[in-house]
């Protein structure tokens, strides 16, 4: 009926949107931690992966899909909090390479332990929604109930984060301790707790992403499932500006769509190369990121 909806252009656009939401969520979780603690968390893919394994492992004990998702997210909160208290707390104020090195070590340990416990064979999760695309006049639209699930979940998480940070007292405290920890402490904000909470929220957002990625029929859950998604999420966050949650989301979605076109018109090997070239170009042209206000460095 409407050939536009099934055209190659719209197909790529919609296909890219689903990936883009996942990249955007990872980028968002990176930005949340970067803004509050000035650490780029290289384990931001592995921690949610581990939480997802913990939650989804209960599937073998005949727990339903949705309770498992809830437990995964709870595990994400817990892992985020414990990590901040035990691993990250000693690193504040150290040279900037120390947290990078520790988080990379943590990433490898988590992936290794996950593979040791649950093996590297992909584990397929029950699919809550059909991955079969809707048809329109005998041709598929690149949109399935599962894709809608991903996109809607993404929108819910983004709205929840926005409401939390912009319209609640807790959100104000979180932002205040990120921007001016000393002043916040004087005004009675428990800055230490806020930092822990920031890591918990960020890991939970990551866990939602990991659940979405692992629920995908074609990938399944593996210890390395978040590696490439993390790389794309970082690229999106760096292009958008590491300070800007909006930038991270928008660039994640843009990156997803652009890369879908690359997959379609070139090949899937070129995807990460194009993403790298985009990152290089954007850092050359606008180093601080597209969406950040120009900040001058304090001496």
């Amino acid at each position, binding site marked *: 009926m409407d050939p536009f909806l099934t055209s190659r252009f719209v197909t790529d656009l919609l296909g890219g949107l689903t990936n883009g939401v996942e990249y955007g969520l990872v980028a968002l979780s990176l930005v949340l931690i970067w803004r509050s603690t000035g650490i780029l968390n290289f384990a931001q893919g592995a921690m949610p992966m581990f939480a997802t394994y913990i939650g989804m492992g209960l599937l073998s004990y005949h727990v339903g899909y949705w309770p498992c998702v809830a437990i995964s997210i709870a595990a994400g909160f817990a892992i985020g909090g414990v990590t901040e208290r035990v691993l990250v707390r000693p690193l504040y104020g150290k040279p900037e390479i120390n947290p990078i090195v520790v988080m990379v*070590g943590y990433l490898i*340990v988590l992936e290794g332990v996950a593979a040791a416990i649950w093996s590297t064979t992909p584990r397929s999760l029950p699919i809550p929604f059909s991955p079969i695309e809707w048809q329109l006049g005998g041709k598929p639209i690149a949109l399935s109930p599962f894709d809608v699930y991903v996109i809607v979940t993404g929108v819910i998480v983004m709205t929840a984060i926005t409401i939390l940070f912009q319209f609640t007292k807790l959100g104000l405290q979180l932002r205040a301790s990120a921007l001016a920890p000393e002043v916040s402490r004087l005004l009675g904000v428990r800055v230490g707790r806020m930092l822990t909470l920031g890591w918990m929220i960020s890991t939970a957002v990551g866990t939602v992403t990991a659940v979405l990625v692992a629920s995908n029929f074609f990938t399944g859950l593996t210890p390395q499932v978040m590696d490439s998604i993390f790389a794309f999420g970082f690229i999106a966050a760096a292009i958008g500006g590491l300070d800007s949650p909006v930038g991270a989301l928008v660039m994640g979605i843009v990156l997803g769509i652009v890369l879908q076109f690359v997959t379609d018109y070139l090949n899937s090997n*070129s995807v990460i190369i194009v*993403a790298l070239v985009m990152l290089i170009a954007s*850092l*050359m042209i606008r180093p601080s990121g597209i969406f950040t206000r120009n900040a001058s460095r304090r001496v």
Partner: protein
Amino acid sequence: MASLTSRRRLASILAVVVVADVVAVVLASSAHAALLSVVMITIALGGAAAATTPGLRAAHPVTWRATLCAALVAATLWLTFFLPATTNFNLATGASMSIVLLGLSFLTGASGQISLGNGAFMGVGAFAVAIWANHHSSTPIIVTLLIATACGAIVGLLLGLPATRLRGPYLAGMTLAFAVAFTAILGSFNSWTGGDSGLQLPVALTPPRWIVDLFHSGTEILTTNSMWLADISILVTGVAFFFMANLFASRTGRAMRLIRDNDVAAELVGISLPRMRVLAFTISSAYAALGGGVYALINNAVSPSTFTFPLSVTILSLIVIGGIGTIPGALIGGIIYAYSANVISWITNNSGLNPQGNLASQLNGIIFGALLIVTMLFAPLGISGSVHRMWRSRREHRRG
């Protein structure tokens, strides 16, 4: 040594060298082997004696570094004549790895940045060697290795130019993306890189005739071959360390260390921050590629599955454990790498783990990752840095 006069010192050194040479001649199996042993022992002991001469380090630092490197190289070369094939092969692998580690150590020690993509840069060098050797098999090794080094420098410059201008984790993130992407990048040039199976070098590196003749006629070809591989790697490593030691101490090296410690002060005295950072990263990538090139020569083949992200993490762990930012740290890391596989399989065999089980296959990553975290949290200077600090504080304590 302080109590001896310089003449008595010289005499005792000469005596030690002569005695060692005589022992070597008596024990040697043939005239050639005796000659070679005498040369190596003389260089090793003479170099060591010269390097420990009081005042030489302060007065002629370049000569001091050259004699120290020559002495170490000669001593190790001499050792390789007697070692069994597997040990020599481990030695060669460790030497090639220590070149890679040296580059990363320099990057961090001199400019305070870090790269998570050194495994991929190693891959650049290894594939450069393999591709070049497949097209021009008659090129001398030294030229092939220089080409690999240049390739690494070019790729490093491309990636480093945008990322190193910025403060913050951009270089780390970008090199991580490069490491994750490297397999896909190789895959896009399948006709050059040989696809998933990788490339075989057309001719294996074999020792020249006169080296083989030095040994008993009964010596297995494998033994002399692996000895030759170890010798080549050790020679290249020695040269690489000599250049790096000079670079560390040079004007450029000092400027980079100032950037690491206080970049604002560095800018105020007129050092160009972006240029120095790019330079440091380019040099470190070139070293990684050189190490990768030697690795390709040793293994006689390259495969894309070697140069994945976990290799980059292993490299990072090795240099952090050895002592990041130090030169001896790279050597320690290389030795750890050469024997890590043996140690881990020993642990697997002696702890009752199922060797085919999940845990056994992940042990390498888990151990290196855990060591990385523990070292960074509790002894961020690594083995070399901690020992150095302990030694210095003890000396100060003794002085009172």
